[in-house]
């Protein structure tokens, strides 16, 4: 599982779900905290589609923490100010890097639930997909009609 996927699951998970996975690791390992959980900012870089240039839309508050388990480093950066969750995420990352993480099935189950919820929300929104009927025959109904009119 790559880092993007791992961190997406953990970031979207509840604090308790992450804490339970970290607690399993703590039964065996004693992580060293290299950077205590703390707040910092991340500037959000965007690409605008008109001239394909970059700009900053604004910042977001994130919490960060760094730990180490037997020489394997674990890092967490996540939106919000939940110090405990951030520390737990760093512990899980360190365990993954050390190759001792045993909660992969739990992660996959969490991901399934998260994806399911997103798809249900998506279904609610897709119900508002609209089909307008043009009352003006002159108006191009769709993009293809517009393109033909240009030719």
């Amino acid at each position: 599982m790559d880092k993007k996927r791992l961190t997406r699951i953990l970031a979207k998970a509840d604090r308790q779900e992450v804490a339970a996975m970290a607690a399993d690791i703590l039964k065996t390992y004693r992580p060293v905290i290299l950077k205590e959980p703390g707040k910092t900012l991340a500037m959000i870089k965007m690409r605008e589609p008109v001239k394909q240039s970059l700009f900053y839309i604004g910042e977001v508050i994130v919490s960060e923490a760094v730990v180490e388990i037997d020489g394997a480093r674990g890092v967490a950066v996540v939106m919000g100010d939940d110090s405990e969750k951030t520390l737990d995420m760093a512990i899980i990352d360190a365990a993954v890097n050390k190759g001792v993480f045993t909660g992969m099935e739990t992660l996959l189950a969490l991901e399934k639930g998260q994806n399911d919820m997103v798809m249900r929300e998506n279904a609610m929104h897709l119900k508002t997909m609209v089909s307008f009927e043009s009352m003006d025959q002159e108006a191009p109904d769709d993009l293809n009609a517009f393109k033909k009119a240009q030719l």
Partner: protein
Amino acid sequence: MAYVAVSGGKEAIGESIRLLDFYRSGTDKDVEVEAVENKLSLLVDRIMSEAGLYSKTYAALALKQCEGSLEEAVFLLRAYRSTLTRNYYTDTVDTGAMRVVRRISAAFKDITGGQILGATYDYTHRLINFDMDGESPAELRRRMTAALSAQAPEEVVPCPRLSDELRKEGLIDSFDEDNRSPRDVTVKMLEFPAGRSARLQTLSRADAGFISGLAYSALRGFGQVHPTVGELRCGYVELYVSYLPDENESIFIGEILITEVECFNAADDKDRLKLAVGYGAVFGRNENKAISMAVIDRELDSGGPYPTQDEEFVLTHGDSLEMNGFISHLKLPHYVTFQSKLDSVRKTRVAGNERKL
């Protein structure tokens, strides 16, 4: 302009600050931060956008602290933000991959990916719902949770941009990716002419009322005539930062809700016409601000004699903190400058009276 330092008033100022609590104490009922965050989310979105800081909880808390004053809440967020380090820059956000919750076009009826109305007040009757006064929040939540659970899951499919299709047809100018580092107006002061990155950042942080008024003036004739909203989309984009132990990997830090708009105008292209595009992108669900930003972006590109086409006018007068701070300073002691004005007025009146005699 001149100011004068004054001393004294320490006790009165202390009592004045304490009196603010009195103005928040008119009821035993509390405004819970969680409730503000979730039930006044459009206001929270506006504050985050004008503060340039995406933090729903802190925006809600700021609103509670200052009796719902928009400019005070923006001030509080900006002030808090200035106490934090900035240790990260996100990877470039791909808004093309947005998880769309609303997407409309005023240019074409049928667009690839479809028009999704999402949640909008556009079609509501603007009648006060008196039943809402006694609404049960628990019942509302139960009803909506049940509705969500009852949905058959639908795969999320990113919607292609309408402008990309028109670009393929050669109707809109195409540009290569410009990967120059953006200017950050929170670090370096604006200079004129401002680059595109400084312009977009400034407009995105601007006071919604200010840029809506400017865009309105352009629509009414003090600028180009009536652009068309080619595409308005609102949805979630994912944020990633580099993974420190291995820069080849990125980690997910969360997702934010943004509104993005592309407005189309007809523009000269040698001996024929083309479509020119104005762009707007803001935090949260804030459609009029995003549309206004797109209108002004295009106005500034076109240039001309109107205020909306004057870069310095537009970019230096729309920041909530700066504009409200400057207006607010008029309340501070101007005793010396006013005495000077008063003396001048008195002298001219005395001189005038002498001439009459």
